């Protein structure tokens, strides 16, 4: 082990160091000045983000337990990018009275879950995958329950931790069978020994159920809406964007590298799950009033679309999944950003409350609209490109009917996204949300999102870069 090796896993290392620094700072700062942690942690994380973009080596460490490649590095960078946006959006919330004394805990928990996700992405064995997953989940429950005196927050926390615990039990049951049939938990070895004997199929399905839980695929999604609704807004966006993105990444990697040999099993599986997820997510989203819950179901439906790329099971598929998640992060963060800004100013988070928003807060409405259009896959925002490439991937593999169902679902989804747009732009309201100034960090975060929404779509280099690095998988 030498310095180069450290550099190889710099994402995780730097993040760990930052976490520790925040912890130390927290211990040494007086209670009344805790707010300084905000600036410190954000700056540190920004540095981490930049370090992440340094060119780097790729390779395996710890006897293949830790793997990194350009693709995985990119994924981590994407996650970091998302997290910094969330951190910026959270500032308003953290400055509220209630959170005054637990500012640093927020950062600690976010960073440690992020470490978990990054290890998960870089996992080279099921053990690392499992541990990363747990690290990404257990503190997350605390984040969900962060607003201690809100019933909903507590409820979200308990629902998350218990269902996560159960799902991870199912997941490791699957892993135990994988181990039992292949004699290893290392991806490389497993991949060599995997075939479609019944037990291995069962093992795969159990494993997949556990992962599906994290990505909220139907029928493993039921926790999602409640947890999203109950959690503080920024935690919800963290959950729906980063946590989900990371899990989707690793699912793709595992499917393509480890379970490649049973693609004939998981392709039809994905087909079924994808159709179910899109449809159910959409059907539930239609009736929602609470925006967080609404976005929860919408993000369930979005997960269904991701499967389309996976099912493409090709270079294009891989690329489009990563690309879509990238786009999705920005779109969803844009939407959640607006929700959070408004929620912490006015405590309103229902679609009805947004009636006539455009007339008082036009900029926020526009950002929201762009974000929703991106989620719906309407050009010229990036979501269109994301969806198009996913569909291309699935179509290239010959799944035309699946694409058709997906596009129909995209149409349904457009319906409910438009409901929000309608509320903001069309509906009349005697007492709309009054005009207010958005805090600077949140504003920056929203601007980043909007720029991202346009740039990612039109600047094809991003997509091409992703493709160039996903070649090896």
């Amino acid at each position, binding site marked *: 082990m030498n310095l180069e090796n450290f550099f190889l896993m710099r994402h995780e290392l730097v993040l760990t160091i930052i976490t520790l620094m925040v912890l130390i700072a927290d211990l040494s700062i007086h209670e009344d000045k805790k707010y300084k942690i905000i600036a410190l942690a954000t700056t540190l994380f920004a540095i981490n983000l930049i370090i992440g973009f340094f060119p780097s080596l790729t390779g395996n460490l710890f006897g293949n337990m830790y793997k990194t490649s350009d693709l995985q590095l990119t994924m981590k960078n994407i996650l970091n990018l998302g997290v910094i946006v969330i951190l910026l959006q959270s500032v308003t919330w953290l400055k509220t009275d209630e959170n005054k004394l637990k500012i640093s805990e927020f950062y600690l928990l976010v960073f440690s879950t992020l470490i978990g996700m990054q290890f998960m992405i870089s996992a080279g064995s099921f053990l690392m995958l499992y541990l990363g997953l747990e690290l990404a989940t257990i503190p997350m429950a605390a984040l969900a329950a962060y607003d201690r005196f809100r019933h909903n927050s507590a409820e979200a926390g308990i629902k998350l931790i218990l269902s996560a615990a159960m799902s991870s039990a199912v997941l490791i049951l699957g892993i135990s069978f994988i181990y039992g049939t292949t004699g290893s938990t290392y991806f490389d070895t497993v991949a060599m020994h995997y075939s479609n004997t019944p037990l291995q199929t069962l093992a795969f399905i159990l494993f997949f159920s556990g992962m599906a839980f994290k990505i909220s695929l139907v029928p493993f999604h039921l926790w999602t809406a409640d947890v999203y609704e109950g959690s503080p807004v920024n935690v919800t966006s963290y959950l729906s964007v980063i946590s989900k993105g990371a899990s989707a990444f690793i699912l793709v990697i595992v499917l393509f590298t480890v379970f490649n040999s049973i693609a004939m099993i998981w392709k039809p599986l994905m087909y079924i799950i994808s159709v179910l997820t899109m449809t159910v997510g959409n059907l539930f989203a239609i009736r929602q009033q609470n925006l967080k819950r609404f976005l929860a179901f919408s993000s369930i439906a979005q997960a269904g679309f991701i499967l389309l790329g996976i099912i493409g099971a090709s270079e*294009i598929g891989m*690329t489009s999944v990563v690309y879509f998640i990238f786009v999705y992060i920005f779109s969803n963060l844009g939407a959640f950003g607006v929700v959070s800004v408004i929620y912490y100013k006015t405590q309103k988070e229902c679609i009805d409350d947004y009636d006539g928003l455009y007339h008082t807060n036009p900029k926020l409405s526009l950002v929201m609209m762009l974000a929703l*259009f991106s989620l719906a896959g*309407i*050009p*010229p925002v990036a979501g*269109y490109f994301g969806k*198009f*490439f996913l*569909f*291309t991937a699935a*179509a*290239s593999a*010959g799944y*035309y009917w699946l*694409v*058709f169902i997906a*596009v*129909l679902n*995209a*149409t349904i989804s*457009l*319906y409910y996204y*438009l409901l929000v*747009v*309608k509320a903001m*732009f*069309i509906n009349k309201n005697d007492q709309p949300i009054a005009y207010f100034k958005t805090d600077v960090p949140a504003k920056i975060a929203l601007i980043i999102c909007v720029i991202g929404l346009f740039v990612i779509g039109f600047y*094809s280099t991003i*997509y*091409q870069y992703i*493709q160039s690095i996903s070649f090896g998988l």
Partner: protein
Amino acid sequence: MDILSFLVIIPVLTVLGIIIAKDPKHTRIISAIGMGLQLILAAYLVFAYLGERNAGNIAEMLFRQDYMWYANLNIHYSVGVDGISVAMIALTAVVVFAGIFASWKVDFLPKEFFISLILLSTGVFGFFISLDLFTMFLFYEIAVIPMYLLIGIWGSGPKEYAAMKLTLMLMGGSALLLVGILGIYTNSAPDGGALTFNILEIAKVHIPIEAQRLFFPMTFIGFGILGALFPFHTWSPDGHASAPTAVSMLHAGVLMKLGGYGAFRVAIFLLPDAAQELSWIFIILTSISVVYGAFGAIVQKDLKYINAYSSVSHCGLVLFAVLMMNKTAMDGAILQMISHGLMTALFFALIGMIYGRTHTRMINEMGGLMKVMPFLGVAYVIAGLASLGLPGLSGFVAEMTIFFGAFQHTDVFHRVVTIVAVSSIVITAVYILRVVGALLFGPIKNPHFEHLEDAKWFEKLSTVTLILAIAAIGIAPLWLSNMIGTSLQPIIDKLSMIIP
């Protein structure tokens, strides 16, 4: 110089200009200037195109520009025009220009209104210049979405319902379309090689017939929904009825043409075998559209509904002609698109102006308006006459070309449906005269109408632009018809190769 891209750039710049504009007046002026430039550019394009052709340039598409965009999917930003697209671009420019003036007095959120309107037109222009299915679809969707806001915010009546229905149905159509396009893409290299979205390159290969059978209906219905194909037309009456003036103009005038244009440029051109094989189904549907729309229009009371149904009928004729798949009929189809685009835009502009004065669109509440507003009345009569196919106006030229083209088929089926389609001209006359009679003639029913003002200058400008265009085509159709016909040749050649 990449003059085609300017067609997209100018509107975008105009939108940016509007965003910085300070007050509604500036907004209007900027829009007018922008779209005026666009009109000039379109006119220049027509002449440049004809010049090139006269100079002996026989390339299928002129003014080609091609930039690689998404290299790994072989997606290009690829533009080029032939006579057909040039004609459609000119149509769009005219209608948008007229639309700006028809909505001169929008006072509720004018800035947003013009932005949406021009964005919509951006999509349309982009659609017509695209040679790449990807960008084509992109622009198509860009064109559809501003409709929602335009109808939802500035519309009237059950606008939210109508806007939603319209958007969803069109998006449902684009769902089919997307699958079709992807299907074409994935089959675009049956002999190996790179898959492509480029229309011209796809046209060179022979897509396997099984794939064609699957994707032709998808593509055709996808575009057909936008072209108000029976039974997928119901967004049209509600949408038009609720939309504000300029939007109805643009929508019926231009956006619906995307359907017809796409149907032949993509569905027929790229999937000719299946088109031959399956056209009979759609011919039946379109001929139903033609007659059905006309009958539907007879009993309507709302002016916009009448026009919407009439659009169903007329646009049905476009698709009908496209499906006839011979040069004359297709020529007629394009002419009909242009002609219908102009006259329906004129109709909607006038209806908007009348509604703005009378605050009703119910024909039974009106009457004798000719007396108080002769200019609008005359214009309405002209629009009506164009619609019922009076010689000397564009509608006649288009319809006749279609009928004669369609009648070139020697089998009974094609001839019978042609005669069915022809019979619509009588029904059209019935409802047009009914409207004109009830609206303009007779005694004035409502005493308030006695003091209504006639058109203002901007309204006149809008109306006259359209009338001139209609008359120009109606009186001297040959150059246009030839311009289209020449460009149709490659398509016909491709079709004739597979006709047994």
